[in-house]
């Protein structure tokens, strides 16, 4: 019998050990291949090449994906190796040299690898169309599907996975080389000896863990200052370190306290949850920390991306309150309205007068970021409302400032606040009652808009007309009655040849939709990969634990505990194993999103909740799969 025969034979006999690793390999191949095909797809290439951020986003995502797949496959391989250690030991016991055993494992690995590669690419070819369709839908392109058989994507996938196979083979070789026979036969019984925690040290570290997380949370809400970047690093480090301490010390300490308070009367469900958890607390601390941090990252990424996508229209509207705007050039406006008339498109046009003046606030709006000097474009509340933008002003002495780009900085300013307009000799003061979100004009320039009552506006206008510093600016804004005319109208708008500045909602909206669609796609894709990886890692780990505890379940069944009673304890353990990383990850991500909320002008609670619910839903599937596996194990134990 040749070595190859032995390999094939052992693989056929051990299918149940292999399928886990095989599944992990196939999954990684499929996801990587889908991503690679999208990367090489002409439609996608066209879109991404035009935008630097999209192109680099895609590239970064590719690297991240590669990294995650790599870690995932290596991890699955290490579990696979552990499960087979007895077999490896047996081969050595009957006299095969370590080199031969390694050669055998590597041969197997390559057989498995090529199989997974072929199957994975096959599945990938089928599903990549679905993903492309999804991408096109998200970015708002209704084109014909062009995705063709991409040789480059296949080649890229093959190269990556052959490299990965080489890496896993090395991992196997190392594992065999390092192992001693004794160890190989003892793997199943491994577990930590539970020591009484050193009270003072573990109390200190336990509390430190909570403190670090708390400090990170606190700082994340207070980091908008000149040390922003430094603060971000500090937040990351303290939260991650805190999470590790939490899993490594705090929770172990708490479990120990609970257990000692029982004085030996542990009860069945604690015996099946608390005790095994404590038994593996050291080994679990690392993976639970990684899973928590990964979950937090994924949740934040998904929620942020989805919020961006979800509020694209709202946010664009805030920046471009009118469908079309022509700044200061009446002839061009006429030209546009005429072509709209010709095309039979219904619209509403109106003119908003504006006076641009310099001014000084009585104090800084934000102690760190802003200046007291400003330039405002004063407009009338009535004219704005006639054009379709309702901004309420309290009384004739007050005004409202709109300036979308700086809104997140100035929104915390204390109001009312006095603004003195230039020139000073006029002694004109306006009391700013609030800073409203969004723009009053389609992104014209970086000038704030000051909305006042109409009578105030007319007074200022007549008073300042003679003053040479005064700049009068009329904007003609046009809103379509029927939003379905957008495409046609925008084409007409773009046909007008003029050097004057033009801003329209629709073009901006499409542009934003494309980039945010791409963003949510990439985030969703990566999120899915992260989620599947973390979920599978937990599942694999629990599978191994279930195998290790099979003997306990058998004993318990013999002692007269029913399967259901045992499952109660098992489920309690799973609630801990799956629930804790999820809960802490959620908490982390909520604080991360809160601290990053300034990038959104609109409220993102709804999209955040949706994104998180989807995540939790898929995550729970893994928990249910795990419980199902345990149930099978417990049933089969007797």
């Amino acid at each position: 019998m040749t070595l190859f025969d032995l390999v094939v034979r052992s693989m056929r006999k051990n299918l149940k050990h292999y399928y886990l690793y095989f599944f992990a390999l196939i999954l990684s191949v499929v996801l990587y291949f889908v991503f690679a095909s999208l990367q090489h797809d002409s439609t996608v290439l066209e879109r991404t090449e035009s935008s630097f951020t999209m192109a680099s986003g895609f590239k970064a995502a590719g690297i991240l994906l590669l990294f995650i797949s790599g870690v995932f496959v290596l991890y699955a391989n290490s579990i696979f190796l552990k499960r087979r250690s007895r077999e490896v030991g047996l081969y050595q016991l009957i006299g095969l040299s370590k080199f031969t055993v390694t050669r055998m494992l590597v041969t197997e690995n390559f057989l498995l690898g090529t199989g997974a590669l072929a199957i994975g690419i096959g599945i990938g070819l089928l599903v990549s169309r679905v993903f492309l369709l999804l991408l096109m839908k998200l970015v708002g392109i209704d084109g014909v599907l062009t995705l063709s058989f991409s040789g480059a994507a296949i080649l890229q996938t093959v190269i990556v996975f052959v490299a990965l196979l080489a890496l896993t083979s090395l991992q196997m070789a190392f594992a065999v080389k390092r192992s001693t026979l004794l160890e190989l036969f003892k793997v199943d019984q491994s577990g930590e000896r539970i020591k009484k925690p050193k009270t003072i040290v573990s109390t200190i570290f336990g509390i430190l863990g909570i403190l670090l997380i708390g400090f990170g949370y606190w700082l994340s809400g207070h980091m908008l200052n000149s040390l922003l970047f430094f603060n971000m690093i500090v937040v990351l480090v303290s939260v991650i370190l805190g999470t590790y301490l939490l899993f490594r010390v705090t929770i172990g300490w708490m479990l120990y306290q609970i257990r000692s308070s029982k004085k030996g009367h542990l009860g069945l469900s604690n015996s099946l949850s608390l005790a095994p958890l404590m038994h593996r607390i050291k080994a679990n601390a690392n993976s639970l920390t990684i899973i928590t941090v990964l979950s937090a990252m994924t949740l934040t990424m998904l929620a942020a991306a989805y919020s961006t996508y979800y509020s694209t229209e709202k946010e664009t509207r805030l920046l471009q309150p009118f469908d079309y705007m022509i700044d200061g050039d009446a002839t061009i406006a006429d030209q546009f309205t005429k072509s709209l008339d010709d095309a039979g498109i219904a619209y509403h046009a109106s003119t908003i007068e504006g006076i641009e003046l310099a001014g000084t606030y009585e104090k800084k709006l934000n102690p760190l970021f802003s200046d007291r000097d400003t330039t405002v474009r004063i407009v009338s509340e009535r004219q704005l409302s006639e054009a379709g933008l309702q901004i309420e002003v309290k009384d004739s002495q007050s005004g409202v400032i709109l300036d979308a780009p700086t809104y997140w900085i100035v929104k915390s300013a204390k109001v009312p606040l006095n603004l003195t307009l230039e020139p000073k000799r006029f002694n004109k003061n306006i009391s700013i009652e609030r800073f409203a979100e969004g723009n009053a004009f389609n992104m014209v320039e970086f000038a704030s808009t000051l909305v006042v009552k109409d009578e105030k506006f007319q007074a200022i206008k007549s008073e300042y007309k003679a003053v040479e510093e005064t700049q009068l600016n009329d904007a003609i804004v046009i809103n379509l009655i029927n939003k379905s005319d957008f495409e046609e109208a925008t084409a007409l708008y773009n046909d007008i040849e003029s050097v004057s500045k033009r801003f329209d909602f629709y073009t901006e909206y499409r542009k934003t939709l494309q980039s945010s669609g791409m963003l949510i796609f990439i985030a969703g894709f990566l999120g899915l990969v992260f989620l599947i990886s973390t979920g599978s890692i937990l599942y694999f780990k629990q599978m191994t634990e279930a195998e290790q505890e099979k003997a306990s379940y058998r004993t318990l069944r013999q002692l007269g505990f029913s399967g259901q009673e045992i499952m109660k304890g098992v489920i309690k353990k799973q609630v801990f194993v799956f629930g804790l990383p999820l809960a802490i990850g959620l908490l982390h991500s909520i604080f991360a999103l809160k601290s990053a909320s300034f990038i959104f002008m609109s409220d993102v609670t709804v999209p955040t909740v949706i994104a998180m619910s989807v995540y939790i839903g898929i995550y729970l599937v893994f928990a249910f799969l795990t419980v199902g596996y345990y149930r099978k194990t417990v049933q089969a134990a007797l």
Partner: protein
Amino acid sequence: MSQQTTMLEATSLRKSFGKRGQIQHVLKGIDFRVMEGEFVGIMGPSGAGKTTLLNVLATIDRTTEGSIKINGTDISSMNDRKLSQFRRDQLGFIFQDYNLLDTLTVKENILLPISVGNVKRVVAEDRFKSIARTLGIPELANKYPGEISGGQKQRTSAARALINEPSIVFADEPTGALDSKSAASLLGTLAKVNDERDVTIMMVTHDPVASSYCNRVVFLKDGTIYSELYRGDQTRQQFFQEILKVQGILGGDSVDAL
């Protein structure tokens, strides 16, 4: 010793394994009875059906034919859930490889069988103290199985079997993994427990020394009862010689000793 009441009664037990055409009959009609307070040993060569008999009587496995009554309850018609409940309330188990939960301390292991149910904590604590004292392991209460010797593990296992005050304790080769000194000490304790607490014990073993601690030894051969020996007023040594004699006739023990 009062041996009036029957604790366990098995009538024409049959057990076969395998599918049609390839059926293997392991128990071929066994009638068997254990009285309250008895310490019964089951002996016989490999493949005689000792462990199968124990499993069937202990409700871990089902019979193919025949009925079993334990403490007046017919268990052959019970469903799984009821059997589980029955095992927990009425039976105690000692296994060859201890079957302790590695993640639990000695005390937690011992208290496990009464952890679900209506035994009050104070009562449970009292029972634990008394049993731990009888078995000489009170100082091990907070140790983990990984930290104690084989003999101590088996004492723990025995304590666990006794904590629910069972009608009958089933022991499957309890000394199989122990050195002779630990084995002797454990058997002495079991005999003491049997005598002092009036606990009914049924023990499967291939070791004539172990079975010499019993009141009665039943020999199995090829799935039927071959013979029975009562200790009566003999010393343990005399009883041991008797057992050896029967075993010699039965043969095959050298294979079993593997």
